[in-house]
């Protein structure tokens, strides 16, 4: 397997103030590698979202270190963390978080725009990303004109268009029915075939299990088990999926 893209070591995170203070993470170490789809599972409140936020440079850990491509993020301020996110991390959220006033292709292009890429090729790249998720025909649709599954696919296109090396998805199928959930997971699994890319999917949905190369279980802010080497078995279970991933 290829190089470590995100390495988190001994992460602790305390959230809230005073009596409401919660130790969300109590010493978690996790490495995301290219070409791997990691499934992070655990009960509600176990710290999954908190861990994903820290891995994705949205939240700073209370202690422990996060390294992105070998570089520590410890000294990074908010603007530097934003720069790391826009250059290396693609997020997929449970509730899509598309911009309602922008069309599908504009939503995808926005990621590039934020990075200062405004050229004509951004349209082509956004179109390619939409084609990857099977939405080549919906460029000019607004989010309200798309189904939940389609909106989530736009969100995935947005996450991959910038060639982010880490795709972090927090409960991406939780708002979708079985069929759409499967479709989304298929796309994410395809993306994870790229050895330059690590995919982390947070979920407590057992239907997702077959798509994982690795399953990490978390409870009460601690990793309790880890299974690896599941990949080949998984892919062969879904032979009908053949979408192209950039």
């Amino acid at each position, binding site marked *: 397997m290829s190089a470590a893209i995100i390495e988190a070591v001994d992460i602790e995170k305390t959230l809230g103030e005073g009596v409401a203070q919660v130790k969300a993470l109590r010493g978690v170490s996790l490495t995301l590698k290219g070409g791997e789809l990691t499934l992070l599972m655990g009960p509600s409140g176990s710290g999954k*979202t908190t861990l994903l936020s820290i891995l994705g440079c949205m939240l700073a850990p209370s202690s422990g270190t996060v390294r992105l491509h070998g570089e520590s993020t410890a000294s990074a301020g908010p603007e530097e963390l934003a720069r790391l996110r826009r250059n290396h*991390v693609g997020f997929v959220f449970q509730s899509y978080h598309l911009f309602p006033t*922008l069309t599908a292709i504009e939503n995808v292009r926005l990621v590039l725009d934020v990075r200062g890429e405004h050229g004509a090729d951004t349209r082509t790249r956004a179109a390619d990303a939409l084609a990857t998720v099977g939405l080549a025909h919906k460029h000019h649709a607004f989010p309200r004109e798309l189904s939940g599954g389609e909106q989530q696919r736009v969100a995935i296109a947005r996450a991959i268009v910038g060639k982010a090396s880490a795709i972090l998805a927090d409960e991406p199928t939780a708002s979708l029915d079985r069929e759409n959930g499967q479709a989304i997971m298929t796309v994410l699994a395809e993306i994870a075939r790229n050895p330059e890319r690590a995919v982390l999917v947070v979920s407590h949905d057992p239907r997702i299990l077959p798509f994982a190369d690795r399953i990490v279980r978390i409870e009460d802010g601690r990793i309790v088990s880890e299974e690896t080497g599941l990949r080949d078995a998984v892919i062969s279970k879904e032979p009908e999926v053949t979408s192209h991933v950039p």
Partner: protein
Amino acid sequence: MLQNWLTRIDKGRLRAASQTLRATAGAWHAAVRGRIARAKDRGVPLIVVLASRNLFQDRVRLITTVIGIVFSVILVSVQIGLYLGFERMVTTMIDHAEADLWIVPRGTRNFEDPSLLDDRQRFRALSIAGVAAVAPLVLGFAEWRRPDGGATPVFVVGSDPRSGALTPWNLVEGSIDALAAPSTVAVDRSYFARLGVKGLGDAGEMRDQKARIVAVTAGIRSFTTTPYVFASFDRARGYMGAPADRATYFLVRLAPDADTSAVRDRIAQNIADAEVLTTAEFRARSRSFWLFGTGAGAALFGGALLGIVVGTVIVAQTLYSSTKDHIAEFATLRAIGSSTRYIVEVILWQALLSAVVGFFLAMLVGLVIVTVTADSVLPVVMTPGLVLGLLLLTVLMCAVSAVAAIREVVRIDPATVLSR
């Protein structure tokens, strides 16, 4: 003042102006719609697309914003336009007089502040080196007896028509030369009703002396609303009851190569109880008396300032609440790695677009106001400089209005996206 305008508004002109306004607004609206529709296929920067969609999505709020800006810009431009009109009007007599230097009674505060000088001083001034000509001017109030028996106060302006010192301008009927005949005057046609006359040839009386109208002007109006009546120098003294050896001002013309300040000093040393002012100084003195001595200027500037404050508050409020509504999107922007600068730019674009839309609508309304007040006592004046200044002011006002919204977005925690 407002009532004055309203009564003077020409109905037809108003209708024409409103039609133009409607047509322009319609065309403009269509153009904007088309532009937005085409934006996705053209090179409009995505950040501008995002800002304009945020703006145009909520129509009610957009309308509020635009009304706020229009109100504010109109208020400011009317106040400043009035100021400019007022400024122009208070010096109109000085502007139309032909003088390099003015010899005025000591303590004169403005043009319409008549006290009298000894006419013999004129000859003393004339003997000074560098002085080419000295023409007397006499000013004073008189009571005009209308043909129907009523009376109204008027302001008599007397100068020798041959001297050309201050003769009526914008003549529409009759002739200046006719003022040489006895018992003749020139008046502005806008004062016909006040003077109880119908036109050329009609006559009133002042101090039991006949005053027959032999010349009619257009647009020589006094902001004091007291009609001006022009007459020859001698006749004017008779109408206002001034002694025969007196004049209000002496208008000095310099010899071609004379040094203005040297001549001015020489005159000042030789003439008692008088001051010698350049035309620019007299203009400035009149202007500052009326604008600042009377509080009129303060009122106009106060109104303008109020307009700016109200506009800023309205725009700030709508921009802030719009930002609050879109806060989840701004958090998403931050989550996908946008810099603070990019987010601030989105808001500033929203502010700028509001400013531009509001400004152009305001200018259309302004055009109507300028048109309908053109012939009024106090016309609202628009100059290219004022238009440019107002545009800058509008943009600045909207940028300042964006501060509250910006303070809100820079505090966004991107992690909130995951808990929504």
